[in-house]
Structures are given as C-alpha cells and as structure tokens.
C-alpha cells in the first residue's frame, strides 16, 4: 500500500499523469491535477511510478504507507 500526493501549486496541467494512470489522476477544468484516490494498491504502483516520472514539473510523489 502506498499514498499518492500532488503539489497543486506546481502542477501545470500537462496531463501526462492522466495518460499514465487514469484510475488515479484526472484533471479539472482549470487544468489542475485531481487525485481520484489517495491510497493505491501494489498492482497500481508501477503505473503510478510511471505517472510520477512523466510529470514535466515533478508535481507528483508517492510514498510507502
């Protein structure tokens, strides 16, 4: 189990995270990332890691709970 976090101030709305892990991330009308869930399963971890790495402004993180 792990916890995902986002820095909403830093997010620029590039939506790379939404493409990598649409179950976890969405984007609102103003172009800020939305966390669809905060806790993720081990199966989701690989996709979330990919999303974290694909954010151009390093706005995302994931921490082991």
């Amino acid at each position, binding site marked *: 189990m792990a916890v995902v976090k986002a820095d909403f101030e830093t997010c620029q709305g590039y*939506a*790379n995270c939404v493409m990598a892990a649409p179950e976890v991330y969405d984007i609102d009308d103003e172009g800020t990332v939305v966390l669809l869930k905060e806790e993720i399963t081990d199966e989701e971890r690989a996709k979330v890691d990919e999303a974290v790495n694909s954010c*151009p402004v390093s706005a995302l993180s994931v921490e082991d709970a």
Partner: protein
Amino acid sequence: MTASVVIVGSSVAGVRTAQALRRGAYEGRIVLLGAESELPYDKPPLSKQFLAGEWPAERVALLSAEAAEQARIELQLGVAADHLDVAERQVVMANGKRIGYDVVVLATGSQARPSPWVAESGLHVLRTIADSQALAADLARDGPVVVVGGGFIGAEVAATARSLGREVTIVDPLEVPVGRLLGREVGSMFVDLHHRNRVATHFGTGVKSVEGRAGQLTVRLTDGQTLTAATVVVGIGALPNDSWLASSGLLVDDGVVCDEYCRAVNAPEVFAVGDVARWMHLGYGESCRVEHWTNAVDQAACVAHNVFHPEALRAYRPVEYVWSDQYDWKIQIVGRPTRATSHCLIGDLGRPSARAAGKPRAVALYKDDSAQFTAAAIVNWPKALVTARRLLAVGSSFDDALSQLEQLAGPRMEPIS
C-alpha cells in the same frame, strides 16, 4: 544476463532510462555518461520559467548526486563520448578512456542548429543551461530583441523577452511559421497571438546578415529592411548529436536508425532513446524521430523494459505529445497534424473574450483521408486535451472525436470549419 548498461547522454532520456531500469528491478551496473559537467538538468524551462528568472536552477534539476547514489547510477560527467566500438562493446571517451558494456543506450539528444550568421557578441542559440544563463544576462539589459525563427522555441523566447519588458521582433522566412505544422488557419492565430502581445513580426522574410556586438547589432533582412537589436536569438531548429557515431559502423541517418524496439539495426545490444533515436513506428509504418520531452520519457520506459526483458520485447508506438507555453496560451499538440489533410476547430482563439470566464480556449481536430482522427491542437483547455489524448490512443474515428469534443464544449461553442 546483462551485467552492465552504459547510457551515453545525461539528460532526460538518459536519466529516465536509468531510473526506469532500477524501477524495473534491474540489479546490474548502470553507468551514465554525459559531456556536460553539470548534474543532469531539464530543458523545457530554459526558454520559459528559468529564462524569465522565475525558477532557480534547483527546479530544473533532473537527478541529484544523492538520488544517483541511492539508485546506484554511476555518473561520469564532463567528458564526451568520441567513438563506439561495437565489436569490442566499448564506449571510447574523448580522453581515451574505454568503458565496456553489455548493453549501451545512446541518449545524446540534439543540439541547436548553429547560427549561419556570426556577430562579435550578443548572438545566441538556446539549448543548454549555459545558453539560457547567457541569454538571460543579455535580456536583463534594456534594448530591442530580434528572434530569428518563429517555431516553438523562438515564440517562447519572444514571449519571455516580452514578459521582461523587452521590445521584440520575430523574423521567419515562412509567412505563417506554425502553419507548416498546424495548417494555415490555426497557424495564423499564432501570428495574431504575437501581435496581441505587441510583438512585431517580419514573416515571409529571411535574414541576410547579423553584424555588430551585444547592444549594437544590425540585422539585415532579405527584403532590404534593417533591424537594430541589443540581442539576437537564433531558434532555427535542432540537429541530432549523432556525428560521434559516424566511425561506429552503425546506420546513422538523421538519428540512429533503430527497429521498432528501439534497437540499432544490426546491433541488438545497442539501443537509442530520445531526440537522437530514429525508430520504426509501426503505427505510422515509417521511421520517425521526435524532439519532444514526453517522447524521451515514454521511450525511456520502453527501452528500459526492452534492455531488461529481451525475451518479451515491446514495440514503441506512442501517440506524440508536445506542449508549449506562449504568453497566456498553454498549447498542446497530440498526434501528428502533418499527417492530416483537413481539420475542424471548436472554440475561438481570435477573440480573447470568447469565453466569459478567463482565457480563450479551443481545440483543432485533424483528420486524414480515411476519416481517421490523427491529431489535435489544444489551447487552454485541459479537459479537451485529456479527451483527445485518450481518443487518439484508442484510434478513434474523426466523427466520434468531433462529437465527443463538441459535447465537452457544450452548446455555446459551435464548431467552425
């Protein structure tokens, strides 16, 4: 078993390949070689927030020394690779040192196309952090700025220089510079965007010469006009850093030529990633090379997988994606608009007040002859971006894409084709 992976090139493609290998539980040795002595840093902010002085250097860092150590990525920076000895499986460095590998990943990226004009000083290209710092120092002084090249980098530099209060003129031999990529109608909205932000354009005119020095430059145009400038920035495209491979025997043709798995043809233990890679895109049925950040990251994930899992190779066939920030427009392009034959526009970019709340927003949808949805260009509309990217990933028809995006737009945004 692959005991050691050597990655040549320490920017986003190289760093992300190394990180993806470790994330995928690769336990062998990873060596990351880079010509520049700086720790790995990122490029997109170099024409935007970093150039404007809004972001400090820490914010463009890609990999700290601690993070490298923690991930057991051996950094060897400050020396360029000079030759690849494919038979001996060694990278030969400019200082004569030889570094052996089981697999090598070529991630040497690209460089700014050099300026064909020479001035004493004050003439810039923009690719590295040192370039961006040197340009920022000149932009800090008052005086007019001439940008040669109306593509994305040129437009971003113009917007940044304008935000710093400089008087800016852009010159490009094409009448509608972005039109080559997005079509004339959409491209001309980008021209209007410059004008709305009080940036002058000389489009449809080339540069004959640039003379003088910083603060006192003269730019002569092919139509006989002369511009004076304190600073000149030349943004006329990029060239892949592949000339060091000319002696390797690898097939190099505007990039390292690779198969669909990003392996160099005829050398399966050699991979290429990022701006320097020319690979076979099975979706397009032709080889392509992409100079965008997200491509470097996505391709790095694919290459790392293929390095570690040669028994389960994955073909790399991405939906291309690039963003650009110009003035108050956040622009995103998904897919490949140059493959399209017509397009349809939803929303309006011409009138800034088209949307009651805030900035104008629009999406241009592109289709090919078989009515397939091939690309979209989005301005200030994140929801449309997500929808378009999803539809392209599943290979939607143009009509489906159009109706979904019209629905998203709601009744107030009628399509204008």
